[in-house]
């Protein structure tokens, strides 16, 4: 019917793509307003009753091949078509001289009114009643059954719109995708297609011109329907399908993070509360790379007691079982002031007494926290790693390590978020067991840009070459000393940045749990060698934009496509 590769534009639902033959949904039949009174009412009545029986038999046959849920709906609808009250009332009206289709519509409508009045579950069944009515009317008129046709091969459903009943009756094993001319991206068809993971385009203007057997390609990511797609279009569809399938597997996957050639990179979660830890029970993460403890303190008028803290930490450690957890000691000050410790009147709080610097006038606060962590670890048999925020000097790292080990913490580290610490990471690693890069604050302090200032967001970019240099310097110090260097800032959640960081020899990436599947997927598709090449290419670029572009150019096309990396 169409020129090759003509495109209908609509609104896509989801990111899927598919190509295949069209199966059109047949419209509901119309009862003519001037339907005549039959010359032979007895014959007409017989014909209507036969239509009821035929529809019921057809629905029962359909139910046999359907899944349990759909079979129940179909069986109940068959029972309605065969209903003795329905048949009797329709028959009586025809006997009294009503035109047969008007009679059956009137009777079904009377039940619909009763069901609607009852509300709730019964009101929802009106759709089933109406679909049964349309089937019987079509049968009587000798028209093909309205609604979704029985599919003998996988096909793309094309319709003006789909009723919920139509969608429920879809034989999912054979439905490749859905194209509707009406509806909207939040309508029921879109929602159901989304839940089923079917590529779907709604508001596809011109879709009604498609006929059964036309070959089309549906691209939900771009909202397009391509008529008679050429080989290149089909190939693009196949690439997307394969990629999405892999991503779905990766999302289900629980295996540890690793590159395509098996180089391990621990994928960890950032959490703020014990409840967050409990929610991780089923999440596919290897542990927690950043447990922010300030949440416990924020909003409190006085410091929480050792008992209170120990209880919370124990709950989090128990929830994580034997998995790794890196706890960060209180990071108050600047944008996270605390009533009982923050000094009033600092002109530049981001550069003031914050993070580990609080120890200068509130040492007990840190000692109590370290005691609480050590106690919770002992009670739960956990072995938490503990790190301090805002370390700028080797002396600070040394002082923190001494306090933590005194409290009984075995694995002690510090955050690297001040450029001074990044530049002297080798000396700092001589004092502690590990470091973790906080890329948000590192960018803030490297670029002299307030994190809270939206208008300067371009300067805060973790792709800024100077920030990448500091990350690379820290990672190199880790390689030299044989100690772990992780990243727990926003940048770890960016799949391209995650590849770069892996290439720079970062040993763990900690991010919000929802970001883990995409990062795991990206990692699994690149070798360590490619990650290193990405790191080198990005570091040679003179600007943030060029650094990202250079890295992206080396990312596997399938990964770019699936993760929509541009």
């Amino acid at each position, binding site marked *: 019917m169409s020129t090759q590769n003509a495109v209908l534009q609509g609104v896509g639902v989801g990111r899927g793509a598919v190509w295949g033959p069209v199966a059109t949904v047949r419209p509901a039949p119309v009862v003519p307003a001037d339907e005549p009174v039959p010359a032979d009412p007895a014959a007409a009545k017989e014909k209507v009753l036969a239509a009821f029986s035929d529809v019921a038999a057809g629905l029962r046959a359909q139910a046999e091949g359907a899944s349990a849920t759909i079979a*129940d709906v179909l069986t109940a609808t068959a029972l309605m078509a065969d*209903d003795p009250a329905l048949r009797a009332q329709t028959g009586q009206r025809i006997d009294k001289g009503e035109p047969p289709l008007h009679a059956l519509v009137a009777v079904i409508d009377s039940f619909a009114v009763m069901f609607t009045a009852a509300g709730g579950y019964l009101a929802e069944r009106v759709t089933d009643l109406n679909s049964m009515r349309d089937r019987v009317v079509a049968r009587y008129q000798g028209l093909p059954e309205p609604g979704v046709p029985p599919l003998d091969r996988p096909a793309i459903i094309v319709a003006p719109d789909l009723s919920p009943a139509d969608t429920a009756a879809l034989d999912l094993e054979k439905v490749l995708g859905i194209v509707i001319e009406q509806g909207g991206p939040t309508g029921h068809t879109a929602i159901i297609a989304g839940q089923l993971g079917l590529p779907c385009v709604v508001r596809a203007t011109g879709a009604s011109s498609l006929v059964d057997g036309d070959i089309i390609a549906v691209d939900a990511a771009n909202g397009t329907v391509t008529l008679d797609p050429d080989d290149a279009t089909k190939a693009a569809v196949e690439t997307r399908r394969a990629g999405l399938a892999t991503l779905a597997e990766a999302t289900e996957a629980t295996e540890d993070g690793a590159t395509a050639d098996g180089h391990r990179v621990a994928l960890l979660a950032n959490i703020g509360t014990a409840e967050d830890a409990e929610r991780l029970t089923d999440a596919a993460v290897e542990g927690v790379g950043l447990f922010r403890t300030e949440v416990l303190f924020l909003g409190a008028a006085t410091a929480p007691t050792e008992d209170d803290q120990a209880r919370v930490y124990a709950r989090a450690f128990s929830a994580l079982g034997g998995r790794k957890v890196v706890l960060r000691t209180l990071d108050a000050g600047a944008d996270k002031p605390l009533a009982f410790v923050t000094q009033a009147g600092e002109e530049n709080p981001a550069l003031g007494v914050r993070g580990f610097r609080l120890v200068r006038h509130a040492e007990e606060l840190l000692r109590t926290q370290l005691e609480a962590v050590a106690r919770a670890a002992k009670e739960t048999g956990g072995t938490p790693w503990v790190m301090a925020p805002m370390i700028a000097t080797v002396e600070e790292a040394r002082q923190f390590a001494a306090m933590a080990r005194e409290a009984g913490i075995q694995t002690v580290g510090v955050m690297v978020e001040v450029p001074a610490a990044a530049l002297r990471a080798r000396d700092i690693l001589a004092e502690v067991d590990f470091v973790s890069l906080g890329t948000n604050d590192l960018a803030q302090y490297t670029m002299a840009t307030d994190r809270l200032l939206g208008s300067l967001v371009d300067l805060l970019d973790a792709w800024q070459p100077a920030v990448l240099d500091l990350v690379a310097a820290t990672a190199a110090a880790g390689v030299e000393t044989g100690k772990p260097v992780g990243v727990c800032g926003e940048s770890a959640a960016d799949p391209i940045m995650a590849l770069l960081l892996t290439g720079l020899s970062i040993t763990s990436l900690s991010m919000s749990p929802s970001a883990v599947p995409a990062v795991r997927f990206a990692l699994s598709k690149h070798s360590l060698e490619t990650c290193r090449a990405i790191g080198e290419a990005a570091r040679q670029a003179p600007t943030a934009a060029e650094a990202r572009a250079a890295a992206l150019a080396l990312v596997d096309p399938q990964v770019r496509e699936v993760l929509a990396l541009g």
Partner: protein
Amino acid sequence: MSQRTVVIASRVGLHARPASLFAQAVAASGAQVTIGKQGEPSMDGSSILMVMALGIGHGEEVVLESEDDDVLDQLVTLLETDLDAE
């Protein structure tokens, strides 16, 4: 004419699958059975539309009537089961 009073066990009431199983059982028995709420008009038990239209909820009491005591006993057993759970 015999009567039975029974409390609906299905959690969703006599809707959906339970209503359909009940109407099917009545039709299969070949007996004339009516169903209704206490003190209200009763309906043909083999009509799923009528049974559903009664709007009988979980825990509600219904009255069954038929000439056939065996059929009544079977239907009472059916309604005393949580049909939706099976």
